[in-house]
């Protein structure tokens, strides 16, 4: 089963010559998708977890295997892998991008393969192999259009960060091998590790996996990379690749029998920071895809909150908390994958037809591309966590976890603030997506960018439909998925007897779904009654409140929509504003603009790297070409080493004796 998946993938590497190559490639991709989904489905069905051993002399015997947890993460990998390549047929056709579409197809397949490998690997080396395969192909995908400087820069920053992550993973696994005796990723028995070593493991894991997942302090590479990549690549990057970091964290933390109490709080606090800061920065963006990228950070934060709750439950031995937190975490992994990919694909359609990513240039697209507009609306409602869509369900779990901690939970104030902060995050997300949806799809066009825009072709529409359908399905019938989730949770936490506690026993999914259906039905009925009743309906221009001839440029722009919020939080966002000075009485046309820096990258890392460059430059004076000096260096080294070696104390003693 597993091998069918893996072997299905490299075959896409072969045909990438003609314009049929792409069709064949995505055909293969879809086959591997089906295979993979079937495989993971079987994994959900089957009770035992199949594992395969095969010898690997350089690394010791390696093992791969599939269980509920990896199967749970395999689903998005293959789903988005297939849908994305379908979308690519319309979005990035071979004949319009002859130079780089081969590269795109090739590394797409490699990346999906790498992710599948790391998900099914039970051995550090295989894991690293898949990890690096994924990371490097992601780099090549980000720099698909490497003739733009912006893309190169984004790719380079991404490469540095992923290399840092890989190095810390090296340290992690190396230490693991030395302490636990093997590279195998198997749970270790209690108190084999010293406390310090355990915490070292924890922080290395946070660094290594957090860099990939884009947790707030380590998110600096994310916005640029996701914004510049082709849209379906952005979809898989933020929908799936980030989740690999989460998977790593989840899998890694499942190896420890006992969890120090601080971990849960740390993870939750990290999650709160990521969520709040992510959505705040998102509101300030003018670039559609960059905004979506910041929202990925926010959602990663929400996922982390779930994980943290589960950790708290594990360390205080409260199975209910474990179930609530883990269900929220895992379900949100799926949900975010679905609606974020959906949003990115819709954004891709917008970019595809209007050739711009600037929100303030767009508008009124709902008339020219109604399907995309509807799909984007579904995605937006879902990502705000509003009922009756899937985002609400996962956030419900996390809220319940927080409230349980508040009610009779062990943890202190820091964690108890979770629920209000999450509420604030939700409100901010709502504001942000009202802004985006209103500015891009509603109203009337703000520039001529959207003149020539058209509804996207068939291949670009189908994936959106599938994803939107999934969002709605999870939203109105969440109880269908509780089995898979509880399986994965049981894998994550083998020690604790979860027994009867299943996700729908701790959360009233059935009633929720009934109410959601009622909501939808009510809306439909009333709208039928009101709108399709035999009332006389006439249409006119928008009421201009007495202004003569309001034109479309007088609309409220996205930036002005967000401005009040940005001002409210200017103490963290620190927006740059370039206000023009109007001096003479009849000033000529001026423009004012404002933008928000990436906080970690532009305010911390860039200055530091410049300092480091200057520091290195200072050393160049020691190598300026005169051979006499070079020989002198050798002599000096010799003397120093001799002096260190000679027993000076005896020498001096010897002299002063007489």
């Amino acid at each position: 089963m597993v091998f069918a998946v893996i072997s299905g993938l490299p075959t896409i590497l072969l045909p990438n010559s003609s314009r049929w190559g792409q069709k064949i490639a995505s055909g293969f991709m879809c086959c591997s998708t089906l295979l993979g989904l079937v495989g993971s489905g079987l994994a959900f069905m089957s009770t035992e977890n199949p594992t395969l051993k095969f010898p690997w002399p350089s690394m010791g015997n390696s093992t791969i295997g599939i269980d509920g947890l990896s199967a749970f993460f395999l689903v998005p990998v293959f789903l988005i892998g297939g849908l994305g390549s379908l979308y690519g047929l319309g979005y990035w056709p071979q004949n319009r991008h002859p130079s780089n579409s081969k590269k795109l197809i090739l590394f797409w397949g490699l990346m999906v393969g790498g992710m599948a490998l790391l998900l099914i690997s039970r051995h550090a080396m295989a894991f690293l192999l898949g990890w690096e395969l994924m990371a490097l192909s992601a780099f090549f995908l980000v720099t698909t259009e490497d003739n733009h400087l912006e893309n190169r820069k984004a790719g380079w920053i991404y490469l540095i960060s992923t290399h840092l992550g890989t190095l810390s993973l090296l340290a992690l696994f190396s230490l693991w091998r030395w302490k636990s005796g093997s590279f195998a990723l198997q749970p270790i028995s209690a108190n084999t590790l010293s406390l310090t070593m355990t915490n070292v493991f924890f922080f290395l894991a946070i660094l290594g996996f957090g860099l990939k997942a884009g947790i707030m302090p380590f998110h600096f590479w994310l916005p640029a990379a996701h914004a510049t990549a082709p849209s379906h690549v952005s979809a898989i990057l933020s929908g799936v690749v980030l989740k690999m970091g989460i998977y790593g964290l989840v899998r890694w933390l499942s190896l420890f029998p006992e969890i120090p109490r601080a971990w849960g709080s740390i993870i939750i606090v990290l999650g709160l920071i990521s969520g709040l800061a992510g959505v705040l920065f998102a509101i300030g963006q003018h670039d559609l895809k960059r905004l979506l990228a910041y929202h990925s950070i926010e959602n990663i934060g929400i996922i982390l909150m779930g994980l943290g709750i589960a950790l708290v439950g594990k360390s205080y031995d409260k199975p209910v908390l474990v179930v609530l937190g883990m269900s929220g975490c895992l379900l949100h992994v799926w949900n975010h994958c679905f609606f974020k990919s959906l949003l990115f694909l819709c954004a891709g359609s917008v970019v595809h037809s209007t050739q711009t990513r600037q929100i303030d240039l767009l508008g009124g697209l709902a008339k020219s591309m109604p399907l995309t507009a509807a799909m984007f609306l579904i995605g937006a409602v879902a990502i705000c966590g509003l009922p009756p869509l899937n985002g609400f369900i996962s956030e419900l779990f996390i809220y319940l976890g927080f409230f349980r901690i508040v009610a009779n939970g062990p943890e202190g104030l820091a964690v108890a603030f979770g629920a209000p902060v999450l509420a604030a995050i939700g409100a901010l997300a709502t504001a942000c997506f009202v802004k985006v949806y209103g500015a891009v799809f509603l109203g009337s066009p703000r520039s001529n960018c959207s003149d020539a825009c058209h509804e996207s072709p068939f291949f670009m529409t189908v994936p959106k439909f599938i994803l939107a359908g999934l969002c709605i399905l999870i939203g109105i019938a969440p109880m269908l998925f509780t089995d898979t989730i509880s399986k994965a949770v049981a894998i994550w936490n083998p020690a604790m007897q979860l027994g009867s506690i299943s996700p729908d026993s701790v959360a009233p999914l059935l009633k929720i779904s009934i109410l959601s259906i009622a909501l939808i039905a009510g809306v439909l009925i009333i709208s039928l009654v009101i709108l399709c009743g035999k009332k006389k309906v006439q249409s006119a221009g928008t009421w201009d409140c007495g202004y003569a001839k309001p034109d479309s440029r007088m609309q409220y722009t996205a930036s002005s929509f967000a401005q009040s919020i940005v001002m409210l939080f200017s103490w963290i966002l620190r927006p740059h504003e370039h206000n023009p000075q109007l001096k003479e009485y009849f000033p000529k046309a001026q423009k004012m603009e404002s933008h928000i820096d990436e906080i970690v990258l532009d305010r911390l890392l860039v200055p530091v790297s410049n300092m480091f460059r200057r520091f290195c430059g200072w050393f160049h004076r020691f190598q300026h070409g005169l051979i006499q000096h070079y020989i002198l260096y050798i002599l000096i080294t010799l003397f120093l080493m001799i002096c260190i070696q000679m027993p000076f104390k005896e020498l001096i003693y010897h002299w002063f004796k007489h």
Partner: protein
Amino acid sequence: MAFLLIFFPLLMAGAAAIFKSNRWRPLFLPLTALPQLFFTIMVLVKPELAVTNSWLVLDPPGKIVLLLVNTLFLFCSLYAVSYLQYRKERDNRVFCACLIAFAGAVSLVTWSQHLALMWVAIEATTLVTAPLIYFNHNQLSIEAMWKYLLISSVGIALALLGTFFMAYSSMHGGKEATLSYVTLLKNAPHLSKTWLHLSFILLFIGYGTKMGLAPMHTWKPDSYGESPGIIGAILAGGLTSCAFLAFLRVYHICHAAGEFAYMSKTLVFMGLISMATAAIFMVGQRDLKRMLAYSSIEHMGIVTLGLGIGTPALFGTLLHIISNGLTKGVLFLSVGNIHRAFGSKNVDRVRGAIRLLPFSGTLFLIAFLAITGSPPFAPFVSIFAILNGAFEAEKYITAGLFLMFLLLVFIGMGAPILKALQGSSPVPNREKMIFRDTIASCGPIIGLMVLVFILGVYIPVPLSGLLNDAVHFLGGQP
């Protein structure tokens, strides 16, 4: 067997020197390299051939280096044929002769069991490689050759003094002075400590100069930068490995004399210093070949570090010598192609190399990722093994610094390389170019790359057996 391996290349070198036609002379290179590799493999499979007389014995580390250098030499000589076709205008008599003679000198280094003899061989490698650097006769290459010759001769002279000190330390306790490797190993515990320390220092500095450890590295960027890419490959892959082997023997003796604790500090320190120096000088480096030279310095630092960590990391260290040598071959040969296609090795002029040279550019990129330790390539395996050794030896700070320098090197190296490879190339139409990727110019590189990849995912059993023998021989447990 030893005499065959040593004198066959010398004879071929002589033949190449007296051979008339400038056009066909390059063929001598593969004609030497193939039998050379064949003989090597024969020695490896037939252990009884590995002993010629008391001075000429091929011990496991020697086997490793000999195998590495001859493999590299084979690919380089294949590449050299096409290279010299491009450089018809230049007389390649000296080039071929010296290159072939180098193989002989290397064999002598690997076989010799007498420290002074080994010294002679090392000096010989210096002397035969010096003219190679001067291949494209211009002022810069003269300067590079001069610096190379003088600095490494001075270093080697110190090594000679160290060798003498070693002999002198063996004279204590009324023993007869000896320089025979085996004898020294046998009565290593009786050597006079003071003189042994001194000789260790001198030999470390001497052979370290040849390996290019900071701060004795100064000749390296110049000579690598000014010589053709193929010579860079030979120097970075072969010469440094020989110097490492020479130092490894000294290390072995001191280890046997129970001086490990003393050596360990020095080696770890110097290794880290070399890595730091490489990282510092890589940042803002605009010249691709000099960049590779610093990378070579870094990796010599890594192997020194590995030696300093001791037996837990020995396997990784020896493996790293192989992987570094092969990967350096790929890097230098492909950068040579790029250099010729763009007529420059400066990052400001080289742009979009992947678009212009699909094969060389891609190979260069992959090799860059490999040499900076990304899986699934050979250097990753060896670096990871060294890291494991560091943790096993409980040298946490060392391991941390090691990783940090790896990251710095990656950043310093990646920025210019990506700048050179990505983007759209300045040369408008590829038809006008004098140089384009051909099978002859890319085949050998691809071959090396395949080797690097194979070693990355799977180490063949004979090779791992050989490595384990070497580790055992050097006093670790396999």
